[in-house]
């Protein structure tokens, strides 16, 4: 089928098998490999993207559901003013170790800060509950988000 999809502000017209996963369209067809596959079953959040304003696992979304959707990936966030702050805070606070979950964590952070630009630790932990990190024990990810919220006031 043919679908129209907007990714990071660019409109694409794609001829696709409707059952293919949004994750594969992003990675294989559009070359946006910042979005990772950790489990392929919606448990780990490494493939998180924002679709029509909502944080979703792109491994669970058949592309047929993406007609006219507005999708933002980590590449899109990283290029934004808030993304610059988040990614810098993540580096400063050592929120990334192996880094494989980190793009998904950045997406969860973006979604959280859109809802609440000044979250507390508990709210941050709840905001990350769908994203598994095996390296950090999460504490330094929380630190990165607290730092980003502080430095990003007003953005």
């Amino acid at each position, binding site marked *: 089928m043919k679908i129209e999809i907007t990714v990071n502000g660019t409109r694409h017209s794609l001829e696709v098998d409707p059952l293919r996963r949004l994750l594969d369209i992003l990675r294989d067809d559009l070359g946006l490999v910042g979005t990772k596959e*950790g*489990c392929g079953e919606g448990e780990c959040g490494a493939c998180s993207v924002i679709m029509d304003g909502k944080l979703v696992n792109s491994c669970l979304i058949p592309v047929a559901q993406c007609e006219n959707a507005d999708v933002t990936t980590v590449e899109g966030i990283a290029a934004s003013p808030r993304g610059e702050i988040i*990614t810098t805070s993540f580096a400063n606070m*050592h929120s990334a170790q192996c880094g494989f979950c980190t793009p998904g964590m950045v997406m969860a952070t973006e979604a959280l800060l859109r809802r609440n630009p000044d979250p507390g630790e508990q709210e941050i932990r709840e905001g*990350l509950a769908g994203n598994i*990190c095996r*390296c950090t024990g*999460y504490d330094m990810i929380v630190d990165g988000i607290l730092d980003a919220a502080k430095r990003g006031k007003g953005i």
Partner: protein
Amino acid sequence: MSSPGQFDITAAIARIDGKDKAAGRAVYIGDVDYRSALTARYYRSPFTRGTITKLTVPPLPPGYYWIDHRDVPGHNGIALIKTDLPAFAVDEIRYRGQIIGILCGPDAEEVDRLLALVAVAYEAKEAAVTLDEGLSCKGGAMAGTDNIYADLNLSHGDTDAAFASAARIVEGVYETGFQEQLYMETQGLVAVYDPCAGDAGGTVTIHGSMQCPYYVKHAAEEVLGDAVSVRVMGSPMGGGFGGKEDYPEIMGAPLAVAALVVGRAEPGRPLRMLFDRTEDMAFTSKRHPSRARIRTAHGANGELLAIDSDILLDGGAYETYSLIVLMRAVFHSTGVYNVPSARVRGRAVATSTVPSGAFRGFGAPQALFGIEMHMEKCARAFGVEPLSYRERFFLKRGDRTVTGGTIHETVILDRLIARIDELSGYRARRETYERAQSAWNGPAAGRATRRGIGISVFNHGAGFTGDGEQRIIKGRASLRKRADGVVEILTAATEMGQGPTTTFRKVVGAVLGIAPEAVVVAEPDTGVVPDSGPTVASRTIMIVGYLLQEAAKELREIWVDGKEQTVTRAYEMPPGLAWDQDTLHGDAYACFGWGVNVCEVEFDPVSYEVKIIGAWGVYDVGRAIDERVVNGQIQGGMSQALGYAALEKLAVDGEGRFMQRTMADYIVPTSLDFPRTGAATIDNPYAYGPFGAKGMGEMVHDGGHMAYAAAVEQAIGKDCPRIPLVPETILEIVHDED
């Protein structure tokens, strides 16, 4: 140029790889555009144990290939410590999922369709899936005549006499389960054969997610023989935790053979093999399950006179690394205690499960669980608080280790304990909860939650066991100063999140007076970097980082502007150490890292759920090269150890298959499960580590599980000698009337 110490080495800097990783710009193996690559998949044994009598491969369309043991030009074995695991099964099968062949071709779906048509006929044998079934050789012995891969024995002093004259003997059995590394990036490798590259026979190149590029090279050379050259390139790893120490060899050697077969027909055509999570969880190596029986002989006042310990590790269907995991287990089996006499036995047992392998800690977390839970039991037997009981027997400088070596460093456990008590309030809370026990266990006991707090004390031998660094690894590391003055670090050390791409730069930058960010780190490519050894055994910063520090000092001395200069340093064993590999006698480790963990829990007597409400870790790592790198290891490692203790149940069925198959079944900690871990270090510099640093990457997984189990013991008032302590296990323990 300036002198070292221009900046405080411990003060944290931003992770140099942090921003690219956060922005999605780090390139993992699955992100590399190998557009022309064939998809390669394994055909794995559909039965657990027995003999293949017939293999049927369907006719393959052009461009599709089948590769099996008949294609191996060299030796059909995976070169680990032993080469007993065949690269491709010939006829004997010892575990479900053992690699029989590779099918590859341009279309992934077609590869899967063809794979489903491959079939084997076989004669099945009875599987032996537990330690006891392995020990009793159920179905006949699969390894040797007794299913024992290795049987190690250490002893000193007159243990029998100590037990004969003991005022009291305490005895216990302690068990730990499988654990899955669950690195977030699954295993993935790309292999390609180019008949024209390199030497006369051409070159097989392997690129991918691995801890040890030179190990993978060695394993590929074993199967390929002398006819071709091998080059291996490590990509950034999305986590390893030991899971990418041995498995990339098990995976890469057969793939190298397949690359050779394909490359002869289609020169330069890459093969890509990326596991999905299901394949990764089902067939890659896990932490060895263990069972330790420990007896201690005591004087009337609780004195520790002798220990008699017997630990079993479940090695799975092939030996692979079990001997060296067992060594580390045995060498850590008396923990941080000075025991006048000891008899320690360790055995690795063959069973019909996936071969067990490397996982952060490498046998130490299992052995330390046994000794620490036993010390808790001894303290209860003598009616004293468990920390003050332990403190009577702590090792100190000059004391004898269980292998007859010497503790060479000043032991600062007293300071670590003072600090963790300050952070956690352990002693006061322990007493408070102890006093509450009578109410909890009395007639008024109701549905109110109960609390407990537990402590563990441990050490971890840093670096390779024995004289392995000198005898086997012979690590070398180089610095190259380019003509433009940029300094490049050349080592085979790999970045899996533990931070060497940041900490190496800090070490070299500090010596040379260069900003760490301006130092370049070469990719770990065996065609470019010297063999500085594998990225394992908590050796990277201590061993390789020290070589870099010393190379940087030399470069500083000979530095000439505008000229390319290279300095290489080779490992030399620190003076004053002695080791006999045949008798396992002497200094098993050049030095130890030391740690103390505290865990506080709240137990719900209705649901049997345990909530972790506090976690602390204080360590002697020599000196932290970067405070946030080290604290990040502490927090992450303790989270894994607490997961191991509280959540991560991985069981096998009667056919040796793991019953937890997905991330929905195998539960690892989320951001909501544990509170913030209080992490701290106290400096105790080591002369042969860079700026005094010792190895620490594994010891952070050595103590959380015992502290948790000790806390649960206090909360429920019962012994908890096995992990994982999931609610159903706790229910069994609470209702077991002994």
